[in-house]
């Protein structure tokens, strides 16, 4: 394999791709050139809107309607892909170029068994007999390391976990032994530990087969983990390109430096003084079980989302709840703000038990605990002006409308948007700005406690850093108490005084951020820490 290591598989030359009229810029990709060589992983990194996926879509012939290449060429095995007809392109897809998508559930047909879907890849290109196809499907499933492949081949996608589904998608992409594999954010929808496994699988397969891999991601941690070469993009242009160790260890461009600095640092958080005042929030043996209604012939299912969870939070303290999906961390947050009704246990906020309140009594206490939501797009009513969205809380609690709107303006000023935002609608703002609006809304009622549920997970790293900075600043200024729920230990390390690790509805370990990072006691915590992408990679010192 090593003798072919320098052979160029894909060569993109001065490619420009035009966006339809009325888009925010004329060209999605402008004058972009790079090569992908046999046996290397080329990472294309950029934030949303950087055009990082566009080149890959051009290669696959999967550009959205109205978007078309206007200049340059894409050379793959001696032919220019831009000039291919749809039919020629289709013959190439799957056969010579494989692709892995971001969301494994939507990339698979929910009503088709896994084996049949893999076999379909051969069928589409008229290869092998039906029997051979099944046999190959099984071999592929074994190769991508699915547990119990004989069973998995007969499973439907919904019966598999996210990581297993992504393995199936990879098996499909590899079925015809492509020369080039394009992976578009393949691990973004996965948990950290699963992400680590999938990254290892991709690296492993790439080495074994000597493929060229074009890996598109927004996460510099992932880049550090797997890239041979890196191409950093911004606004459709290449900002920096080079060997991974060069770009990560010694970034030349200012933007790259800023991006790398914005990664939540791997450095161990500094020790913070433990707060010894009486707890503001005292959760005692909280339980929550979700039951699905059974039918006539099927038993009802029970999921224990919270299992005897107890924890305290002091006034002015930030506690991070960390866990993978299904750990019950979000349910805990939703119980604390009482969007869910806990089955039993106590939820003492400054001595008042919120856990069993109902109806109007609950409504009157609601202003004491507020929440910052995950999705900046879904958390604001598209038909309500921003000022009103913030003022509606105080209005519901009896503040006169004019005064509430004036306060909304002041709050918007405080979160850095300016009071003029009051009159505008949510769709006029970017994701990061919307999240600031969400923070202003949570602050509007002067709550004693704020629960932030994955509040920065949907944002680009640089925006994430800004929002975290804002939260930190507000925390100091207003001495907020914060329950910060996240799947990302790096983010938790940045802002939290204490960290609580959850798994399967139970608290596995809790302690100061420093203690969790340096001396994790539990095996699960250690595996979470090890799974952080780019943990040991030579990343430039963060400022």
């Amino acid at each position, binding site marked *: 394999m090593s003798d072919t290591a320098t052979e160029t598989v894909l060569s993109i030359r001065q490619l420009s791709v035009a966006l339809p009229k009325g888009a925010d810029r004329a060209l999605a990709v402008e004058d972009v050139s790079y090569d992908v060589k046999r046996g290397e992983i080329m990472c294309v990194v950029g934030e949303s809107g950087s055009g990082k996926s566009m080149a890959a879509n051009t290669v696959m012939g999967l550009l959205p309607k109205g978007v078309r290449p206007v200049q340059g060429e894409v050379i793959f095995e001696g032919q220019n892909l831009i000039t291919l007809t749809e039919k020629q392109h289709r013959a190439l897809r799957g056969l010579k170029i494989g692709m892995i998508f971001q969301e494994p559930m939507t990339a698979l047909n929910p009503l088709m068994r896994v084996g049949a879907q893999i076999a379909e890849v051969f069928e589409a290109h008229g290869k092998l007999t039906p029997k051979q196809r099944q046999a190959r499907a099984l071999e592929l499933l074994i190769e991508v390391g699915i547990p119990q492949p004989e069973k998995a081949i007969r499973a439907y996608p919904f019966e598999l976990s996210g990581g297993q589904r992504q393995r199936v998608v990879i098996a499909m992409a590899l079925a015809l032994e492509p020369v080039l594999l394009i992976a578009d954010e393949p691990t973004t929808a996965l948990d950290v530990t699963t992400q680590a496994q999938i990254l290892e699988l991709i690296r492993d397969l790439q080495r074994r087969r000597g493929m060229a891999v074009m890996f598109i991601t927004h996460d510099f941690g992932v880049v550090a983990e797997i890239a041979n070469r890196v191409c950093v993009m911004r606004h459709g242009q290449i900002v920096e390109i080079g060997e991974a160790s060069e770009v990560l260890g010694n970034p030349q461009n200012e933007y790259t430096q800023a991006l790398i600095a914005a990664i939540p640092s791997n450095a161990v958080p500094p020790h913070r003084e433990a707060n010894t005042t009486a707890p503001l929030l005292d959760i005692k043996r909280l339980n929550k079980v979700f039951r699905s209604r059974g039918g006539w012939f099927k038993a009802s299912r029970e999921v224990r989302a919270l299992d005897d969870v107890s924890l305290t939070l002091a006034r002015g303290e930030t506690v991070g709840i960390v866990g993978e999906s299904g750990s019950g961390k979000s349910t805990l947050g939703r119980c604390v*703000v009482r*969007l869910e009704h806990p089955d039993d246990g106590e939820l003492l906020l400054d001595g008042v038990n919120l856990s069993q309140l109902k109806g109007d009594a609950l*409504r*009157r206490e*609601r*202003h004491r*605990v*507020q*929440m910052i*939501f*995950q*999705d900046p797009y*879904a*958390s*604001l*009513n*598209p*038909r*309500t002006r921003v000022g009103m*969205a913030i003022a*509606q*809380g105080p209005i*519901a*609690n009896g503040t006169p409308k004019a005064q509430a709107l004036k306060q909304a303006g002041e709050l918007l000023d405080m979160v850095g948007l300016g009071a003029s935002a009051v009159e505008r*609608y949510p*769709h*006029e703002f970017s994701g990061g700005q919307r999240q600031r609006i*969400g923070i202003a*809304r949570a602050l*509007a*009622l002067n709550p004693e406690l704020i629960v932030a549920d994955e509040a920065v997970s949907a944002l680009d790293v640089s925006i994430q850093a800004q929002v975290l900075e804002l939260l930190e600043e507000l925390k100091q200024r207003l001495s907020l108490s914060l329950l910060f729920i996240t799947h990302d230990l790096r983010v938790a390390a940045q802002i939290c005084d204490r960290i609580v690790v959850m798994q399967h509805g139970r608290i596995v370990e809790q302690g100061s951020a420093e203690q969790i990072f340096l001396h994790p006691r539990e095996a699960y915590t250690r595996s979470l820490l090890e799974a952080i992408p780019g943990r040991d990679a030579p990343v430039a010192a963060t400022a």
Partner: protein
Amino acid sequence: MSFFARFAQNRGALVGLIILLMIIAMAILAPLLFPESPWRMVQRPFLPPMSQDGFPLGTDTMGRNVAAGLMHGAWVSLLIGLVSTSVALLIGVPLGAIAGYYGGLIDDILMRFTEFFQTIPNFALAIVLVAIMQPSVTSIVLAIALVSWPPVARLVRAEFMSLRHREYVEAARLVGQTNSTIILRQILPNTLSPIIVLASLMVATAILLESSLSFLGLGDPNVMSWGYMIGAARTVIRQAWWLSFFPGVAILLTVLALNLVGEGLDDALNPKLSRER
């Protein structure tokens, strides 16, 4: 930008509004242009259009003036279409909203009630209702409203069910808004588009339903309507096409106009579209 300016940005909506205003003008001007009752026989029957002065659209099987019938009928048809749709919305929207927002037992009860109405064929129920209440404009409007609200309730319920778990609705609950405020301020505005589209189609169905009732002799005997005209002309459609053609075109134009206006309203109410255009 004013509401009307936003509305007017949609060309189709403007055309629809103009057509609708013309039909309303027809209804208002009818007593002035044709002061005589449209039921009066004024010429020999089956007079083709444009064949004699004063009868631009000809006469019908009994020698009544088609133009007069068309203009007088505009009033009744519009009235029945709009009023019965409004009544149906007044029943269907709150029921659907409550069922969809609260779910559970309340939803079950309200939906079984809705299904009870849905299992009986629309037209049969309307006939029975009109027959019991005696044919009159009021009873026809009521009957049509009573048979056409279930689809509204179902639609609104489905919309509410999908919207009630949105984060902005949860945020509204968190700041302590009451259920009624959340229903009216947070969710209902976001269900307007499908409701408006459905309502404009319902006006059309109502006009057609009224014509079927008139055709069976269950129309209000004192008022001329487009539905009655089509119904009465059905048997002679091969000899006298104009008798069903003109009222048919009138219904078509009204429905089209309402659809276009509905679309324009939807655009004007949607903050996202209104600023992008």
